[in-house]
């Protein structure tokens, strides 16, 4: 494995405290420590090779809940991505589609919708309007982020071209929370927000006591230190309940991008619903809208529909 990544991720600092297990959706499903970040770091510390941990690394949902609560500050997502990238079959270059040259990011707030939101044209149009945001014709930025998370290698030329164009934007809003980790790295000076945070300014007034507010776990966990206060204030102001865990981490019900919804997703959604018994469910992530709609016995709507 790349020695630089080894140092950057800090996996050597893992104490095996297992606090990360408490929020890990894979742990909740399997109760097998080897399938979790805790198991991967402990095995690496004891000399395991990336190929020994392939099944474990590939099982990760990249929700970032482990990173959000790790007392030792291990960069768990970078570690898992590095493990995936070190697997022999992960040699292809990331990125497949590009936005046509006619689309310009310059000076605009750009909404990066991802496939699930694109599939709901009406909602996408409404959200873009609410945010006064432009929508690129394809998801080149979030595709690139997803490919990197999958362990694919980025073509430096392509990465440079894509980020140079998008860097001209005045702000980015990611409907897929996993992309934020990469966006903030690529564009440190650019405001990059999750869809929920971006919409709350216009939609928070529609929340009320009895609502269960389902945060986009991947967006929340990517910047938990800041967002934890923002969402706690939202809860106190509106009286809604938050879907975060006892540790105030967000555990996704929806699967990772590109993987089908499974019974595990529904189990997790039911677990969240069972805790609160809400009168209405409001979700941030477009990919969880259908999931909660299929298991909840109360109305489920997207945050943007509150405006």
């Amino acid at each position: 494995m790349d020695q630089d990544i080894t140092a950057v991720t800090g996996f050597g600092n893992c104490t095996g405290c297992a606090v990360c297990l408490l929020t890990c959706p894979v742990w909740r499903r399997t109760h097998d420590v080897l399938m979790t970040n805790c198991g991967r770091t402990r095995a690496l510390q004891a000399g395991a090779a990336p190929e020994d941990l392939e099944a474990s690394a590939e099982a990760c949902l990249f929700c970032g809940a482990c990173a959000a609560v790790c007392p030792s500050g291990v960069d768990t997502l970078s570690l898992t991505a590095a493990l995936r990238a070190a697997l022999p079959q992960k040699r292809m270059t990331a990125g497949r589609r590009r936005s046509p040259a006619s689309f310009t990011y310059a000076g605009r707030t750009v909404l990066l919708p991802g496939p699930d939101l694109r599939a709901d044209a009406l909602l996408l149009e409404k959200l873009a309007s609410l945010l006064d945001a432009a929508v690129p014709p394809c998801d080149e930025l979030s595709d690139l982020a997803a490919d990197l998370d999958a362990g694919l290698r980025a073509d430096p030329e392509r990465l440079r071209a894509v980020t140079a164009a998008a860097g001209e934007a005045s702000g980015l809003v990611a409907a897929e929370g996993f992309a934020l980790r990469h966006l903030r790295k690529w564009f440190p000076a650019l405001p990059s927000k999750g869809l929920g945070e971006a919409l709350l300014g216009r939609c928070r007034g529609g929340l009320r006591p009895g609502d269960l507010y389902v945060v986009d776990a991947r967006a929340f966990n990517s910047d938990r230190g800041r967002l934890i206060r923002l969402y706690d204030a939202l809860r106190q102001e509106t009286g809604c309940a938050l879907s975060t865990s006892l540790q105030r981490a967000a555990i996704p019900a929806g699967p990772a991008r590109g993987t089908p919804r499974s019974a595990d997703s529904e189990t997790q959604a039911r677990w969240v619903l069972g805790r609160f018994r809400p009168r209405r469910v409001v979700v941030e992530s477009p990919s969880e809208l259908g999931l909660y709609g299929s298991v909840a016995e109360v109305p489920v709507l997207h945050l943007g529909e509150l405006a």
Partner: protein
Amino acid sequence: MNTPPAEPAADPMAAESLPELPRQQTNPSRWNGAGWAAFAAHLRSRGIEISEKRPALAVYATDSGGLACGMPHGVALARSTEQVSEIMKAAQKYRVPVTVKGGGLTTEGETVAYGGLLLDMRGMSEVLSIDKAALTVRTQAGIYWHSLAEALRREGLDYLSAPLNMTSSVGGTLQVGGIDVNSPRLGCSADQAVSLKVVTPTGEIKECSETEDPELFERVLLGYGQFGIVTEAVMRVRRFTPITMRYFYYSSIVEAMEDLKMLVRGDAADYCGILTIMDKAVNLLVAFDSDERERAFFRTWRKELRGHGEAGFALRMAVHYALRPWKLPEALYLLSRKNAMQPEFFPSHHMEKGKIVDRTVVFSNAVWKFWGGRRMVIPDLATSEEKFVEAIVRGNEVCRKYFKYYTLYCVAIKLRDGLPRYELSCIPPDARGYAYGCEFEPMLGGAEYSRDYLQSFKNEIYDIGAEMKTSYYRFGGVMKGYIRRAFGDELVDRHLALKREADPAMVLNPDVIF
């Protein structure tokens, strides 16, 4: 059960070396690996999955202490009581050691397997039922206390007492004690058990409680895993309440300990304990489940305490260090440590109207953040009320001798006097009414200390206990040499005979106690 004779104690190491020289294993009681293949094949034929792959084994190479290392031959995830029973029956038949691990929050290698099977109980982590009327919960024993708390909270309930560490498992805790800052009122975690489902060392499945097979119940609780594997537990729980926490600061550890004893005797607070930064900043914490209890405390007890509020203590410390400018680095350390820790004990997102709503999370996060590390050395002394102050003062001197920075954590434990489970346990034989415990934890940080140095430190702490006839929380594993010194041959031999009777092949958690 017809137990086969022990395998000859051959040396499994480097058989090809020094071929002309007869050799004998240095520790003949240590298992030599014979029978593993047949054992594993037997279990696999019954559909029990065992991993022998090195990465899977490597995960279990050490415990939270990080100093005791060993590797099992294989790992199994506990999935059901019946599966655990099959494993133990086979373990007896093939004489294969079984080391049981839950959270693995031991520091002396008690959950490290030196060969044989590592049975990870966390595969059994479900809450089975909650009885809100009876205020009890039935849970699988591999569950983390945090996960249990999360399930209970959904019903407006909370556990009674549990370690200040949410990644301890229930089953392991019940078998060693489990101490919380509410233990002065509610006792140790083991004392909240109503009944247990246990797999005996010979693989029998038994339910036990104070009325059903009480002998087994008393042996298993605080039994350090020697007399059975707890697979399910019914425990008493209570209504959830947020807590109010108050701190009083001392520069004298003796005064703080005496005040702690006074508060415990007077049942003055719902939670109390001592947490220090060396012996310079001694923090007596008290907490309350209700405003009434807090008001009563301030009305009756506050004036009796010699501790100061934060401002008063800061002023005294400022004067103290102004007169001792050569101790400026120590003052800066105290200040930086206090500034780093204090916000973590009052995080706004775990607070509601000035009360801590998630104490399990707040305490545990702080424990790992400020006291956790890849290597942890936490010797302790468990004493009667009469011996508490002297033992801890002497332990503190040992800390000062070995380390620049360290922490003491002291609590009291309410006892139900006369219970057989307290025999050969962390509860000192001479304690009545209350036992007291203190952990001595050096802040190792990035400094390199040799194993010999750390072991010498532990030995000096434990020597105090042997001399004063106290007990220890962590007397197993690496420290088991102290067991006979602390408890005497007669008691230990009696328990050894019980163990031999219950575990003919002596395979369940070997090397922990006996």
